[in-house]
């Protein structure tokens, strides 16, 4: 059954290649067929493989396509590895990717670079699949950088606008900072084990290192650097809000559902190394907690609907990190999957709104859309409920509740991490429903132009169903007790051990989470629907506005990095544009030339001067010899 494995990433790559070569010469219909079809077939193969995998439950399937290279024992292969963890990721990437590709045929229909768009999207899907299917870290790195390239190309898709280009480069460069750390981590891993094969590292790491061994900690931190960069976590999160410059399907696919969770995948994949490095685990959890709060507060103050969703993505990935950091591996991956569904849904809804409102993205100019765009409204509501963890009926409630619960009940849990998560949940539900009320309720402020057709609505409905029903495959112990998802992952990712006598309090924590979510929704209702004057009274306060501006700018990280890194670098480069080292050689040349001029003035051609010179010289020599 593994024979088809290579086709899953190969098909999107082939699609990209075809579109690069022939894209400008073939009809749009054919472009869509190639672009959507290649991902669609990959998704179908994934489904077939997934069913077979579930029925036979092998530990893993490996397929080597060819050996990449072999230098003195360093011999990575182009080889794919399929196990439960990669299965989950492949499933989300191909299916959500397929839906977003369908959606894009309508969203991008008017764009003249239609073929380029689908070429980049296909390339992205291929690289992302490479990332999650790689059996060694070097191939993973190939996918890792490949998705970075596609992210760069798609953020800057509308290249005429310099701001888009700036955002694109920012994304590429900042993630590359993280990648550099990761690359160094790979050098160390190679030095330790003589291989980058993930399974070998996992087995050997346990034998070589003790828990907390220094090398393990350093390597885990370096890998974390890569994860932080790609996943938009503190301190490398600043690129993600700006990445919204790309077309909305791109934001949905790359900057919400898949690429930004690559860091989660990396940590889950290398969990053996992280388990041996408790300090790094703590760092993962703390980074997650701080990020989810920072991004949550920033999301509260954004007006651009896509920026709200971007900060929300940063914040939700923070939850995943929080889960991973306490060793709740499968909870983190579960939240990744559910988040993939509902965040893609929210972005696609936002895209439908933006398209309908002639590329208006400011929520202050939206309103009253619930009647005009009913399907978008109801699906957005499902997505919002899931994001805000609306109790019982949303998938997000189950995935987030599990993470919060394990912060307290898990053996590595901590009350502060729990409180951060709870506060984050509260903020999440406020900003989510702020978005709902500003966009769909109130007065209609912009005329609705484009009405979505099936290519947009069908993906919305499917993702809506998934965002609603996806949670039921993993229910808490005290009601339902369905553990399909964690059972599926258990062979790969160890289950977190729960402090035993904590179970009796579980219902209290669930109730608390539910209350927090509902109160948040009520506050949003109060401020943004019932009594908008409350907001105005806040706006009158000087202090509140200062905080507002601070959060709006993303806690000033951009300004800080601008002063700390960007400007000094640009200054250093500009000031030395003409290369001061060259100045030394120019100086040498000038001195030579100067001497040449000086001495050539003595060549007067007048005998008198020469005789004079001889006489003076002779006198000088005589005096010197006499004096000595």
């Amino acid at each position: 059954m593994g024979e088809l494995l290579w086709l899953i990433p190969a098909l999107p790559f082939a699609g990209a290649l075809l579109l690069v070569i022939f894209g400008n010469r073939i009809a749009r219909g054919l472009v869509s067929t190639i672009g959507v079809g290649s991902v669609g077939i990959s998704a179908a193969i994934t489904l077939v493989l997934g069913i077979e995998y579930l029925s036979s439950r092998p530990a893993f399937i490996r397929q080597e396509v060819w050996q990449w290279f072999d230098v003195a024992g360093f011999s990575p292969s182009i080889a794919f590895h399929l196990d439960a963890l990669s299965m989950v990721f492949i499933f989300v990437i191909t299916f959500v990717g397929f839906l977003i590709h369908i959606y894009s045929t309508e969203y991008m229909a008017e764009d003249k670079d239609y073929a380029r768009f689908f070429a980049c999207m296909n390339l992205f899907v291929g690289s992302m699949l490479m990332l999650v299917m790689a059996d060694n870290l070097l191939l993973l790195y190939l996918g890792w950088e490949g998705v970075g390239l596609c992210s760069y190309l798609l953020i800057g898709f509308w290249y005429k606008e310099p701001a888009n280009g700036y955002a694109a480069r920012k994304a590429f460069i900042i993630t590359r900072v993280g990648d550099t750390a990761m690359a160094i981590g790979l050098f160390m891993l190679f030095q330790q084990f003589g291989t980058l094969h993930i399974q070998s590292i996992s087995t050997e790491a346990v034998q070589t290192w003790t828990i907390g061994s220094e090398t393990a900690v350093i390597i885990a931190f370096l890998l974390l650097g890569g994860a932080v960069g790609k996943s938009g976590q503190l301190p490398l999160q600043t690129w993600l809000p700006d990445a919204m410059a790309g077309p909305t399907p791109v934001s949905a696919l790359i900057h919400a559902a898949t690429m930004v969770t690559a860091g989660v995948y990396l940590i889950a994949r290398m969990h053996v190394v992280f388990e041996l490095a408790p300090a790094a685990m703590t760092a993962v959890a703390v980074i997650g907690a701080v990020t989810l709060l920072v991004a949550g507060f920033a999301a509260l103050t954004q007006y651009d609907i896509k920026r709200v969703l971007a900060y929300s993505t940063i914040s939700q990935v923070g939850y995943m990190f929080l889960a991973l950091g306490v060793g709740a591996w499968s909870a983190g991956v579960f939240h990744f999957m559910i988040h993939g569904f509902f965040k893609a849904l929210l972005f696609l809804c936002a895209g439908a709104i933006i398209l309908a409102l002639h590329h208006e993205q400011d929520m202050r100019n939206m309103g009253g859309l619930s009647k005009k765009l009913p399907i978008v409204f109801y699906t957005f509501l499902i997505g919002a409920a899931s994001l805000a963890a609306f109790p019982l009926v949303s998938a997000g409630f189950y995935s987030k509740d599990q993470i919060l619960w394990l912060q307290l009940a898990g053996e590595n849990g901590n009350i502060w991490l729990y409180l951060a998560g709870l506060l984050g949940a509260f903020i999440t539900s406020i900003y989510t429903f702020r978005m709902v009320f500003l966009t769909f309720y109130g007065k209609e402020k912009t005329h609705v132009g484009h009405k979505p057709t099936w290519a947009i609505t069908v993906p919305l409905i499917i993702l809506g169903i998934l965002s609603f029903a996806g949670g039921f495959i993993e229910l808490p112990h005290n009601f339902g007790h369905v553990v399909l998802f964690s059972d599926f992952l258990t062979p790969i990712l160890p289950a977190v051990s729960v402090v035993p006598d904590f179970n009796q309090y579980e219902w209290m924590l669930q109730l608390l989470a539910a209350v927090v979510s509902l109160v948040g929704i009520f506050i949003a209702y109060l401020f943004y629907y019932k009594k908008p004057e409350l907001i105005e009274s806040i706006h009158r306060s000087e202090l509140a506005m200062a905080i507002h501006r601070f959060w709006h700018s993303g806690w000033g990280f951009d300004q800080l990095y601008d002063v700390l890194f960007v400007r000094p670098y640009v200054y250093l480069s500009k000031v030395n544009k003409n290369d001061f080292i060259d100045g030394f050689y120019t100086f040498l040349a000038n001195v030579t030339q100067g001497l040449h001029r000086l001495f050539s003035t003595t060549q007067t051609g007048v005998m008198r001067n020469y005789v004079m010179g001889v006489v003076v010289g002779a006198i000088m020599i005589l005096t010197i010899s006499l004096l000595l």
Partner: protein
Amino acid sequence: MILVWLIVILMAGGVLAWISGKVNRALPRWVALGSVMAVFGMTLYLWLSNPIPVLGSAWLIQFSQPWVPQWGIRFSLALDGLSLLMLLLTFFLGLLAVLISWREIHTKVAFFHFNLLWVLAGITGVFLTMDLFLFYFFWEIMLIPMYFLIGIWGHENRRYAAYKFFLFTQASGLLMLLAILGLYFIHGNQTGVYTFSYFELLNTTLAPEAARLLMFGFLVAFLVKLPVVPFHSWLPDAHSEAPTAGSVILAGLLLKTGAYGLLRFVLPLFPTATVEFAPWAMLLGVIGIIYGAILAFSQTDLKRLVAYTSVSHMGFVILGVFSFNEWALQGVVMQMITHGLSTGALFIIAGFLYERLHTRDIRLMGGFWSTAPKMGVIALIFVMASLGLPGLGNFIAEFLTLVGSWQANNWLTVFATIGLVMATIYSLRIMQKIFFEANRMEQALPDLNAREMLIAIPMVAMILWLGLYPQPILDTARPSIQEQLQAYTKPAQEQVPVARVDVPAKKTIYIKRTGTKNPEETKPSSNLQITKSSN
């Protein structure tokens, strides 16, 4: 004999091209194309037909004839995997150089092609010769035609650039000549056999002090050529003022002769001295990586920008060479090839743009993607190659180099890796300023035509092939690399250099070995190498 033919065809082709210009203006181009294709075909045939030798016998073909017997100078050529790869690169880029000059060069066409072929001949000689005197001879041969290429067919400031290029390389070359002579006399005094033969000189026992001095002589020549900061300042001028073919040959090949020299001569001849100097050399490499990258970022002349990226990329070469392990050296060889391709391609794109716009100033460009998407895609691929995107050849080169250098020195490797971020910063600027943003010019840029695609497509194919399946290259280079590294694989004996001089038993071994008659005639080099390592 085939090795001699390679050089002879190029030199004769050059003369013929010059003469044929009297008959027909277009004829020199065809003569040049024909001769380069002939030598490329021959080398390709050599590569495909020769099985990769197993460890211990790195040499594939040898040729040796006395030249100036009374001074021990022989016309001695030898081919191993490393030189084979370098020749393939030389002739591939040579072919492209002829093709890109097809429309670009209009004045003194015949003399241009004479110079072009003679530069290639000089480079071929440098990569093949196993006699140090002959090496110096070819080293100079490649210099003079290059001087003309820059000085006659270059851009506005060509005279200055040509002088600067000449002075830098000439001065550093003289130091190498001194070092060669020093080695010659020391060896002659020791053994009574005065010879310039590389294989013989490998067995010279040097006092540490002498080894250090002689090594610096060689090192200066190669470091200037490579170039290493602070000897790099000839390069931006020469690169940006040269015609496109000249820039391609400079970046793709002339810089590689420096790297080749380090691998072929410095490492095996002075094992102890290089180990001592290694941390400093690696430091210079890292400084070059970072300094070149910072300077590249602020350049506004496209060719100058690419020139500084070469400074940055060549830093990886010296970093890798002085790491003394197989990963790093394979990385260096890969870097020589992939950098030749990727930087060559960027210069070619700069040439395409210059032909269309008559400027190299990227501040005046922008938005070309909309009218020239093919050029955009190809530029994107090579920009990505230059920032080390996996899947393209340069990544393999840089990753292997860094994996290797990590074993040698952690902190310097960390800083070199930071250079990758800086590479991203300057590389993306190229795309942004030329192909993205709004078009600042009135004219619409025409896309690549068939001839230009014919040049670009093979380069794209090569860089992808090298990134996805570099094994044939690595296999070809392996025996030579292992041979260059032999002196380092048993560090214990090399750590005690004095012992090598003083212990009489060892000395007799050397005398006995040099006593064997004319080692080149009996394909002895590999034996020599083995015995050397076994003592």
